[in-house]
């Protein structure tokens, strides 16, 4: 099951490790994504802190970590081919993070709430 942040990141959690990406809504708002960059493994973040950035031709957006923890791994695929974030945002994860406070997940939205949130 995935949870969603107000900043339009998704997170799936397995065994205390979260996998994070940006949502379909986020990629549609940005348009053609031309660049993405993620903080390196070992970076320790609090929930809501900047974990990287995505850029399109006419816009740029920071990626915020939906949870606190340490970045374990980053995905090279979208850095090499940013269009993956447009074509398959749900499958294209950006980083894996070891959750230091799993209770933070409760503050995130589920799929239905997030869909409502996007409709405004």
């Amino acid at each position: 099951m995935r949870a969603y942040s107000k900043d339009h990141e998704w997170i799936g959690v397995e065994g205390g490790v979260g996998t994070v990406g940006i949502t379909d809504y986020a990629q549609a708002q940005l348009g053609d994504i031309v660049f993405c960059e993620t903080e390196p493994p070992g970076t320790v973040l609090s929930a809501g802190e900047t974990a990287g950035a995505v850029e399109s031709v006419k816009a740029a957006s920071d990626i915020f970590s939906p949870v606190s923890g340490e970045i374990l791994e980053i995905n090279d695929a979208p850095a090499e081919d940013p269009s993956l974030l447009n074509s398959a945002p749900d499958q294209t994860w950006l980083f894996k993070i070891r959750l230091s406070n799993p209770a933070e997940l409760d503050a995130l939205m589920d799929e239905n709430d997030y869909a409502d949130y996007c409709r405004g």
Partner: protein
Amino acid sequence: MGSYIPAAKREREKLLGGLGMTSAEELFAAVPPECRIGTMNLPPPLSEPELRRELEALAADNKAPLFIGAGLYDHYIPAAVDALCSLPEFVTAYTPYQPEISQGTLTAIFEFQTAICRLTGLDAANASMYDAATAASEAMLMSAAQTKRKHVIVTAATHPHIKETLRTYARFNGLTVSEAPFDGRGQAALDTAPHGAACVIAQSPNFFGVIEPMRGISAWASGAGAVPVAVCDPLSLGILESPGEMGFAIAVGECQPLGSPVSFGGPHAGYLAAKESFLRRLPGRIAGETGEVGGGKRGFVLTLQAREQHIRREKATSNICSNAALSALRATVYLALLGPEGLRETAALCAQKAAYLRAKLQETGIKPLFDASYFREFAVDTVLDGAAALENPRGSLIAVTEKRTKAEMDAFTALALSQKKGVSI
């Protein structure tokens, strides 16, 4: 008296009437009375002939020095540079936001970037900066962002205006600046410089005209985890080794010697080039090559714009917007005309003429302050009229471009000799 409003008064009244207004005052209804002003205290307007007379008088009240450089040099400017860079489509356009009607400016920026990369031996250059001092300041900020360090080293013989500008920018960005002193030969000594710096900024040829031991400086900086930043006169790179080849990660400099007149200090263009790893930290405009949507003709656009202020706002790599496109165009055209051989010959002429005058002065007992290698400028131990004054160490800074003739240099030597005698009495 002069007016650049095409519409006759009668026509403007008609437009006003169309808006249901009877007086221009009604256009400013939103401006509250509390902030209205009376007539501005300005001199009476001038017709074009009067204006010309006044400006010609002002221009005539200046005198051109022959042997003053100190960062701005009197090089010959080929006639075609002025002719091409006065074309109104270059002069009266703005930032190429609409690429379909800006291919002229965009192609020229791309050519400028290419020329700067090739001269500096680095991977990526931007469309231009305001000048060398602000380019060096941006390089300092790039280095601090990259290394997350807060201290900056600059070689003490770097141009004083560059050092002062660095200090201003540093102060408001929470950075500190220290200077690596120069030794008896006028070259930077880094043995007492602190480790842990974000960058080492070194100018070569330095303010005294001396060529710094650039390979040693970049090696020291890299060894200390600091970004090596070179400040290099692009014209000197016609004969001097490129900063990229000598291990520098960033190079900046002043493009004035490439086809722009001294013009009392501006406007000119600065350049900034860096290794590929700094690509997304570069400030300002960058032109890139692409094709028409769906394939077709090749063209150029402004690219990597997500770095810039109009998109990233407070998170932009820099606040720079307008840069110095027309001055950069002058450099681009100048380099196209001179080519590699012309640039090499011009740079060589500067060095050879400087060597001639330096030796002539030496014969009269006016000694160089430093004995290290030099390019186009050198410092001497005597204060001389017609040269830039040096305070520390005391003396003069003498610049010799390829434009200076033997006759001018011999006359300068004679004058210098008489001044030296005058001083010794």
